[in-house]
């Protein structure tokens, strides 16, 4: 087995390491970059606890090889707010509307919400429920998560756009 050198830009910082080709992106993020906000909640690509933004798309980092992410730009929960000590409007909404209990699913939920709200201008409750259909929560029953995402949309509207972030998101319908 030959190691492969990969370089992945995570939250604006380039990490280079020689890895086994079978290493999953989530393990690169947690063990090599040392960012443990990205979780592993299942072995079957169902739960979304491992969600990150890769080149503008929300994806499940447990089902991507680190070698596949070579040269790509990744945003994890740690990189969402660029201002130390200040929560991103989506994170703040989850706090204000009690969008979490144990918190295990939360980083994935927040990143999927961020992706949805940046991709689409005005989202309905149906859009929200559809967008988080690949993120499972064992605690909240989802109602407070949907409330949080609606609140996040209002927060983002009030703050007048998303320019602060410098996190490009692929636009879509």
């Amino acid at each position: 087995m030959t190691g492969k050198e990969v370089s992945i830009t995570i939250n604006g910082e380039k990490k280079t390491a020689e890895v086994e080709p079978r290493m999953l992106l989530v393990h690169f993020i947690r063990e090599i970059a040392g960012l443990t906000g990205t979780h592993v909640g299942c072995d079957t690509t169902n739960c979304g606890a491992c969600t990150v933004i890769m080149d503008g798309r929300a994806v499940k980092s447990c089902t991507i090889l680190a070698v596949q992410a070579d040269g790509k730009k990744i945003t994890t929960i740690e990189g969402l707010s660029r201002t130390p000590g200040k929560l991103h409007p989506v994170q703040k909404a989850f706090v204000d509307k009690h969008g979490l209990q144990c918190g295990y699913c939360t980083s994935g939920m927040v990143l999927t919400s961020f992706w949805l709200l940046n991709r689409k201008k005005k989202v309905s409750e149906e859009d929200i429920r559809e967008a988080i259909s690949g993120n499972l929560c064992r605690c909240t029953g989802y109602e407070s998560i949907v409330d949080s995402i609606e609140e996040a949309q209002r927060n983002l509207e009030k703050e007048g756009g998303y320019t602060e972030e410098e996190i490009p998101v692929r636009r879509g319908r």
Partner: protein
Amino acid sequence: MMPPAFEYYAPTGVDEVIDLLEKYGDDAKILAGGQSLIPLLKSRITAIPYLISLSGIKDLSYITESSNATRIGAMTVDSDLEYSDTIRKRYPILMDALSKLADPLVRNMGTVGGNISHGDPSNDLPAVMLALKATFVARGRGGNRNIKARDFFIDTFTTALEHDEVLTEISIPVWKEHSGGSYVKFEKGTWNFSVAGSAVQLRLENGAVVEAGIAITSMGPKAMYIPEAEDYLLGKKFHKSVISEAADIVVEKSQPSPDTYGSVEYKKNILKRITMEALENAFRRSGGM
């Protein structure tokens, strides 16, 4: 779990992919979006000593429209189709399938080519391609070869692709005026594959069917098209009894197996209902009711 160890290649050209497939034979497999393959590796259902990724090839992701066809690069991710105006306008049947395929995060990685090449009877896009009468382009050592969707699906996880062939393009004909289609999927929970799926594409003249494509998902060893039901519909106009009889033919030709999703009888009941729904939608969308 970690996948079993493998060597990884990401060449920049299709010809190099073919070279590697020839060199390593059955020990090698193509990796596209990985959304079927990586779960199989992680659960150690399969082991692949040599993985050859298509992600280094620049020009396999595109959607181009011409007056008689829409051409889709094999590495186009599902969500790019889902957000494409061309696809939305031309193929409502495909939009139905995409919006229910896996979940939005899986659709951000999974590719159209992978969905078709995998040969999984539960994948949703094969039935849609059968109903739309698409053609696939495979590139091998000797150059390109066109394979009709209807000749492509052979058996469970077996397609007409040779081991050293790469699916490069999906070409869907433009269905003329007064045509429309629908895909209805019955699933238990979003992240599950379907219990059954039914794809119907129709073209009408003066309200009567002149061309039909009907195919089903998860109801046999492979995605199956049902020519008997297509023939039955020719010349018919919308009527409750027509869609009921066409659906009966589809059910009769289906070959479901019992599993944790349900018994054969249960699955056939579901198939009847969703096929009637897809037929009704297709008639409505083609202006026939």
